[in-house]
Each structure stands twice: as structure tokens, then as C-alpha cells.
């Protein structure tokens, strides 16, 4: 018995992800992309996107093999042209007639889940590792199910707020009823959010495949509620603290003689006190959500490990932002490369079996149109 266990434990190896990209090298690719995009009036942007993705995928290694991005730029270009035409048609229609505008907006909302699914499928189907493609089940029914509830609740909220004046004008006493109804809806939205985030993440994971192998998602709604609850408590503490500092500074200025400096100091207060608080929250959620998702990924017994740290992410965001501001955006490639390097450095795979065991799925030729439309919105699901 013991012997068997020992053998099993020994066969588990931890493979680290590695990112080998270099800022200088990517800078050259990036600046040439921008120049050619400008010269071709945007047409090259599709090739630029593919080259950028290929650079980042190709520099990401796991167990001495790289990832590969295989999207066809022509297909992306077609998607972008369709997107441009749709966007122009939408803009023109909205400036002509509010009814058409409203209809177009509702249509767009109805189609959004489908676009998300198609965009996800496009991205995964064009991702490869060890000559085996990733894949995504286009389960539209499920996507619509997940999106239905929040849309109904938010729609109800908007409807009530838009109608509230008419009703209250007729019957002033109904105000309290509406207030309570809106309060309940708002509370429902807040309480629903962790569940919804779980559902969306779960949807993305369980419909993904590597070759013929399915991904499993082992997180539960409880994990999500706990994560959001801790984030909520910490934000109250941090924003409360930031608020006290801001109020203190304002009070100090009021009591001083130079009240005239009040409007001048305001942007500085926001930049140096409120912004770090906001950035902290952003980094915290980024780290916790990513970790929670990756640490619960399971592909035929091989498990991902992700140890993003809020502190280091915050440091990256602040230094990246400062660098971009000082360089007018020219240090963007550097920021992207170092972020990718950090993310790879904290991600690893616990390999229980053999990475050579996966089999390629038979690729059926699918209509590309849906994927192009999904691609044109370029919705990043962060997978």
C-alpha cells in the first residue's frame, strides 16, 4: 500500500511556466505594427494583433514546449470590417431616430452572450500547445441561461427608475414602496454578483478543451462568496482610511487662510490618495480572481497553480503607469513584457501523468462568420 503511494507521489512533477520575451525585441515589433497600421489606414492592425499574440504565446514555455497562436489575420480583418460597418450603421441610426437606436441597443444586448461565446471559441481554437489545439464548446443555450438573470434584474431596475416619476406624480405615497423595491433589487444585484462571477468562470472553464480532454473546474460558489466578502471588508477599511485622509486635508485647508487653493489641491488629493486605494482594489481582485480560477483548473489530473501576489501586482501597476506617463506610452511594450514575465513566473502545472498523453480532436470546418463577429468586439475573457 505504502509503496504504491510513494510511486504516485514521485510521479508528480511541478513544471513552471516560463516567459522568455524581451522588452527591446517586443518594442521593435510593437512600433513597426503601429507604423504599418497607420500607413495602411488600419488594415495592418489585424496582422499586428496576430504578430503580438504570436510573440507572447511563442515566448511562453511549459515543459520545454511553447504555446502557439494560429489565427488567420485575413479572418480577423474581415471581422474588423464587419464591426466597423455595424458600428457606423449603429451610430447613424442612433442620431436619426430614438426608436431605432433603442431597438439596435436591445438587439446588441440580446446578441452579446452569443458574441462572447464565439469570441472565446475563436481564441481557444487558435491556441495550440505541443501541436494539439485547445477548443471551446459553443454552448449558446447555457450562455443565455447565465446571462438571463442579471439582464432581467438590471432591466427591472432601469424600468422602475424610469417610471418612478410618473407613478409618484399620481400617488405620492407610493414613493416609499418604490424606494423599498429599488433597494431590494440593488441588494439582489450585489448579493448575486459572486454567484454570477462563479457561473461565468465555470462556464468558460468547463466548455474549454485541450485536444479531446475536458477541463474541470473545482471551485464552488462558496469560494467566490468568501473572496468577495473579504474584498468587501478590506475595501471598506482601505477606502475609509483614504476618505479620512482626504477629509482631513480638506478640513486643514478650510481652517487655513489660503482657501483659494482648494480647487487646485483637489486633483492631487485624488491622484495621490484615492487612486492608490482604487489601484489596490484592482490589483487585489485581479490577483485573487486569477488565483481562484487557475488553482481550480484540472485537466485530466494535471492541476494548475497560480500564486499572484497583490503587493507585487500593485507595484507592477504603479511602476507601469508611471513609466507609461513619463514616456508618453513608449514604455508600453516594456510594461507588457514584465507583466507577462511575472504572471508566468508564478504559474506552474502539477503534472500527475504524462504531458504527452493528450490526443488531438478531429477539427471540423466551422462557419467562420460568427467567430469574426465575436472577434470584432475583441472581448477579452481573460483566459
Amino acid at each position, binding site marked *: 500500500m505504502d509503496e504504491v503511494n510513494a510511486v504516485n507521489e514521485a510521479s508528480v512533477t511541478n513544471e513552471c511556466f516560463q516567459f*522568455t520575451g*524581451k522588452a527591446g*525585441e*517586443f*518594442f*521593435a*515589433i510593437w*512600433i*513597426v505594427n*503601429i*507604423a504599418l497600421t*497607420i500607413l495602411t489606414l488600419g488594415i495592418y492592425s489585424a*496582422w499586428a494583433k496576430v*504578430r503580438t499574440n*504570436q*510573440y507572447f504565446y*511563442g*515566448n511562453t514555455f511549459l*515543459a520545454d*514546449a*511553447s504555446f*502557439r497562436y494560429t489565427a488567420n489575420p485575413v479572418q480577423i480583418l474581415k471581422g474588423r470590417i464587419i464591426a466597423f460597418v455595424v458600428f457606423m450603421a449603429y451610430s447613424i441610426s442612433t*442620431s436619426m431616430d430614438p426608436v431605432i437606436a433603442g431597438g439596435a441597443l436591445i438587439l446588441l444586448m440580446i446578441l452579446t452572450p452569443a458574441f462572447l461565446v464565439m469570441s472565446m471559441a475563436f481564441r481557444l481554437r487558435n491556441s495550440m*500547445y*505541443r*501541436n*494539439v489545439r485547445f477548443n471551446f464548446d459553443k454552448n449558446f443555450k447555457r450562455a443565455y441561461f447565465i446571462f438571463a438573470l442579471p439582464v432581467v434584474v438590471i432591466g427591472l431596475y432601469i424600468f422602475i427608475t424610469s417610471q418612478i416619476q410618473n407613478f409618484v406624480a399620481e400617488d405620492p405615497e407610493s414613493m416609499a414602496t418604490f424606494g423599498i423595491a429599488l433597494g431590494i433589487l440593488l441588494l439582489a444585484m450585489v448579493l448575486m454578483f459572486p454567484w454570477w462571477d462563479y457561473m461565468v468562470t465555470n462556464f468558460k472553464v468547463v466548455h474549454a478543451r485541450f*485536444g479531446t480532454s475536458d477541463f474541470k473546474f473545482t471551485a464552488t460558489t462558496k469560494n467566490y462568496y468568501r473572496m468577495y466578502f473579504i474584498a468587501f471588508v478590506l475595501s471598506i477599511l482601505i477606502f475609509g482610511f483614504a476618505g479620512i485622509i482626504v477629509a482631513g486635508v480638506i478640513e486643514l485647508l478650510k481652517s487655513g*487662510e*489660503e*482657501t*483659494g487653493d*482648494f480647487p*487646485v489641491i483637489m*486633483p492631487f488629493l485624488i*491622484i495621490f490618495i484615492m*487612486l492608490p486605494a*482604487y*489601484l489596490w482594489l*484592482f490589483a487585489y481582485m485581479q490577483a485573487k480572481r486569477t488565483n481562484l480560477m487557475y488553482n481550480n483548473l484540472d485537466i485530466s489530473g494535471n492541476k494548475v497553480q497560480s500564486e499572484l501576489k497583490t503587493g507585487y501586482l500593485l507595484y*507592477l*501597476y504603479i511602476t*507601469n*503607469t508611471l513609466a*507609461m*506617463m513619463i514616456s*508618453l*506610452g*513608449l514604455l*508600453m511594450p516594456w*510594461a*507588457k513584457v514584465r*507583466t507577462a514575465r511575472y504572471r508566468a513566473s508564478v504559474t506552474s502545472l502539477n503534472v500527475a501523468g504524462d*504531458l*504527452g*498523453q*493528450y*490526443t*488531438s480532436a478531429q477539427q471540423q470546418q466551422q462557419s467562420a462568420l460568427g467567430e469574426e463577429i465575436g472577434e470584432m468586439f475583441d472581448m*477579452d475573457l481573460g483566459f
Partner: protein
Amino acid sequence: MIKGSYFNGVTSEKKDVLLYFTDDGLIGFNGLDIDEVDYNSVTVSSRIGNTPRYINFTNGAQFETCDNDAVDQMVKTLANEPGHGLAHKLESAKAFILFTVVAVILFGWMFIQYGIPAMSKQVAEWLPDEASQYMGQGVLEAMDKSWFSASELKQQRQDELRKLFNGLLKNIKGSQDYKIEFRLGGKIRANAFALPDGTIVFTDELINLAEDDLEIASVMLHEIGHLKRKHSLRATIQQFSLAMFVMVITGDVSTSSSIITAIPIMLVESGFSQKMETEADSYSLEYMQQYGINPAYFAVMMEKLEASYMPQYISCMEALRKDEDNRAKKIKCITDAVKLNKEENAKAGKNTLDYFSTHPSSEERVERFRNKI
């Protein structure tokens, strides 16, 4: 010989192999029991920096290698494709990169400086008036809530100024919806605002600065200029387009958050409104000349506005607060402050906060109107 990994296309199994090619265009592997294939039947991925290269075979197999130079050598020997690796050649030419950086910066600057404002102007003119109306809704209410309180000006004085305002509108086409409102500025002090729906708000503090009503008229014309040129609509479109532009160029949420990219926009934005202020100045100047109002009135008003932020002026006015109708003394407060401000400016030189302020340096503006006298 190229060292790399072989993947058979059916499973993810990785085999370390050596790829060789012959002079007559055949490719094979050392250590694998596979027939040699013709080079023309395989696809070689193009080079991107130092990322691995992939050679794909018709049977679905793939060869992956990090030895870029060897692959380049093979492509050069076996095929004569002048287009192969063109993008990589551009990306690795140092002089070309340097030239591109300069060209892109120049283009970006020109686009932000001239392209976006010109575009926004066109779009603002193209949009129906309802767009401005829509934007203006509730703006005054919001300002009333957070800053203003009811005007302390006497009704008679308000009527007088309204009459002056309506008189100015006579020669201005499409101004039938314009109206003027008075408020006590409080923290905002002496100021005037042109709201998108055609309402112009004057603070009591600004009215109190004027010795002659023509000084107020000059500011009225300036605000009418903002309305006529649809500045608030244009500013909104500009901000939106600039945000889009910055997002397209730097656009990547994973490296920083999008709110952050808005900060440089804020800095550039004040530059935009400086241009609009100058435009409104020109408008005011044009109509002042048409109505036969001496441009010096505007220059005087600008100097007073700047001086009105001095603590000496504020305390001088504070002392007169209970003195209901002491116009002469109030005027003396501001004339003294202007004098003092001029002396201080002469001593200290330029205003250091210039870049953050939305108005062009008032010295420049005053100069402009003085020169027209």
C-alpha cells in the same frame, strides 16, 4: 542539422529530434522512422523576434525549434521567396526602428493636436441641436446643488443686466434660446459658465468686479462665443476620441487599469480648452468691435478676474460684506488688488501652474485685447 521537437499531430507526445535537409530539397529526421519529404510540401512559420519556429507537414505533424538562424538558413538555401520574413527584417533594422519611433511620435502628436480637434468640430456641427440640449439637462441643477446659492443681486440690477444681454444677442443668429442666470458663486467666486443648453451663468462675484457694465458685456460675448462654437459638445467628443485613441495605442487592461490612462488625458485636455478659450476670445473681440465696445474692457476684466483670487481682495471684500450698497468701496478693493497683483507678477515672473489651468495665461490674453485698441 536543426535541433528541435517533433509532434506527430495525433497526440501531444514530444520527441527530441534533429532535422536535416538536402541540397535537392528534401527534409528528414535523424532518429525517427519517417520518410523524407519535399520542402515544397511543408509550411515554415515566419520569424517573430526569437520565438520558436514551427514547420508543419501535410500529415498534421509539427516540428518546433528555437534555432531561428538555422531555419532562416534553410529557407534561404531551399526556397527563393523574397517576401519571407519581411516583417522580421523591418523589426530588426535598428535605423528603421529609430526612424519609425520618431515618425510615430510626430504622427501621434499631430493627430492629438490637430486631427482630433478638427474631427470633433466637424462632428459637433454635424450633430443636431438636440445633442447639446440633452447634454445640458440637469447641469445647472447639479451646479446649484454643489456650489451655487441664490443670487444676492437686486432684481432691478438683474433686469438691467438681462436687458444688456438681450441687446447683445440682437445681431447674433440662432441665439433665441440663450438666456442668462445669476447665482452667488461661493467657493467658485468670480466666474461665468456657458452651459450646453444655451444658459449662461454669471456669479454675483463677477458682476461685483465691474465698474462699467461694458466690462460685463465683454464677458457675456465671450460666453456666447463658447455657445456658438458648441465648445462643450466638442470638448466631450474630443475627450471621448482621445480616450479611444489612447486605448488603441496603449490599450491593454492587463498591464494597468484604464482609469490610469485617463490621467495623461486630463493634462492634455486642459490644453484643448485653452484653444477653445482663445476661440471664444476671438469671437468676443469680433463682436465688441462690431458693437463699438472698446476691447480694453475685456482686458480690464481679465486683470480683475486674476486679481480677484488674491487674499488681499478677499479680505477687503469680507470687510465690506455688511456694507450693503457700497459700490465705490468695492471697486476700490479690486483696483487695489489689480495693482498689487501686477506688482507681484512683475516681481515673480510667470505663473507656474499654467499647465494645469484651463485658461490661457491671462497676461497673453490681456495683451491680445490691448493690442486691438
